């Protein structure tokens, strides 16, 4: 079913084996020995992985596992203390980053109209295209609100706006940091639909979540992290039914993982 090798227990596996996986696919997103240490506290430790270039990868793990930090490292929002992120065999650069976009847990909404929020992202790529903007707003169900100040939208609407903005740059990879964490079920459903549609159009999605149900609904594969380390990376059905590590089993069964 998958043309990429899925690595379980990468952090404990042999680095040589990981490195050999890095070259071929021009769309492969890989990290090698990625670490982040702040104030002498290791927050991300030696994460080496090679992500499948399609589908939705869910990042899971208890609070403080380093899920959001991993996302930011992959997106280049923060520089790693050591290690590298490569995409298509090239070191992550501003040029490459333009083909990624990110949606944050708390939507960042500019103090402008709904339409202007999308225009802003288009303009960042040198595009001025009201028709496309309206199509994007229509896609996320906000066309009727186009002229409203964005900050008067509900939480769910704001997150959909953030999604429209993230999609505006036609990213090849979309990173989502618990985008539905504090939303009502109806909003969650809409956002999941939009994410599924993006996936169907070939956008790679890396999605941090707490929600096992959401993982079941969306995930093609799952990264499981704990205390800054990568513990498992494998197909979602496998991970959810037969996790390999004790930490993952504890997590999936709702036990507190320390």
């Amino acid at each position: 079913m998958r043309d990429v090798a899925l690595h379980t227990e990468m952090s404990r596996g042999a680095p040589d084996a990981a490195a050999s996986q890095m070259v071929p696919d021009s769309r492969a997103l890989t990290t090698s020995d990625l670490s982040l240490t702040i104030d002498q506290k290791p927050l991300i430790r030696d994460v080496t992985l090679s992500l499948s270039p399609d589908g939705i990868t869910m990042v899971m793990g208890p609070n403080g596992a380093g899920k959001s930090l991993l996302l930011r490292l992959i997106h280049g929002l923060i520089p790693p203390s050591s290690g590298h992120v490569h995409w298509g065999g090239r070191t992550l650069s501003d040029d490459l980053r333009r083909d990624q976009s990110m949606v944050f847990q708390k939507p960042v909404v500019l103090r402008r109209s709904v339409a202007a929020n999308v225009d802003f992202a288009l303009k960042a790529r040198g595009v001025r295209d009201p028709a496309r903007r309206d199509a994007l707003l229509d896609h996320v169900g906000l066309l009727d609100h186009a002229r409203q100040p964005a900050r008067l939208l509900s939480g769910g609407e704001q997150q959909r706006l953030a999604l429209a903005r993230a999609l505006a740059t036609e990213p090849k990879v979309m990173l989502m940091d618990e985008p539905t964490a504090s939303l009502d079920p109806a909003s969650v459903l809409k956002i999941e639909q939009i994410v599924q549609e993006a996936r169907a159009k070939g956008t790679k999605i890396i999605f941090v979540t707490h929600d096992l149900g959401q993982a079941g609904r969306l995930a093609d594969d799952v990264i499981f992290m704990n205390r800054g380390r990568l513990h498992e990376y494998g197909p979602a059905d496998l991970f959810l039914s037969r996790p390999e590590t004790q930490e993952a089993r504890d997590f999936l069964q709702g036990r507190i993982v320390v």
Partner: protein
Amino acid sequence: MQDFSEAFRLALSLVFSGDSDLVEIVALSLQVSLTATALACIIGLPLGALVAITRFPGRNAVLILFNALMGLPPVVVGLFVYLHLSRAGPLGFLGLLYTPTAMIIAQTILITPIVMALSRQVLEDLNAEYSEQFRSLVLSRWQQVRALIWDARFSLMTVGLAGFGRAVAEVGAVMIVGGNIDHLTRVMTTAIALETSKGDLALALALGLVLMVIALGVNAMVQSLRMTAVRHAYA
């Protein structure tokens, strides 16, 4: 105090008689100080924004310098500008001394540090909210600066007001570089200083009241604009 009631009476009669000298002086005051405020914003806002979004060695020293420059005595700025614009000075060939332009230059120098320092604070707070999104979109510095200033525009109005308030109220700088020439460079504050030196305290106070009302009016206008913005969640 007799001077107070006399001043009120005089202020009212000046305003309601539409005294042409008063109108001229008020107009010049507004022209000079509003222009200086606009220029200070054009210079100070991008600089404030740039410092707000940038971390560099010596940044703290720059912030301290900004804050210290906020307290520049107007008379020192006036002297500084006089020495440059004087015929004997390096820019004397421009022939700008004793013109409204010279007054605008002096007030711009006086209030640009205020605009820089206060906008830096406002924009740094906003940037804390926006910076990850900006970095995610891979925006250039200039794009970030413009977006921050635009999105904070209503908060920055208060910054502009602070600058305008200082400009319109100062006398030391415009007195030196403008010369308080009747019908040419006389503004509210220099007129007040002149009437005080003539011992006409009531008239001086009356002009002071008019100045206060003008400052109040400008403030009220900006505040009402801002309230509208807050209601629409733009602030």
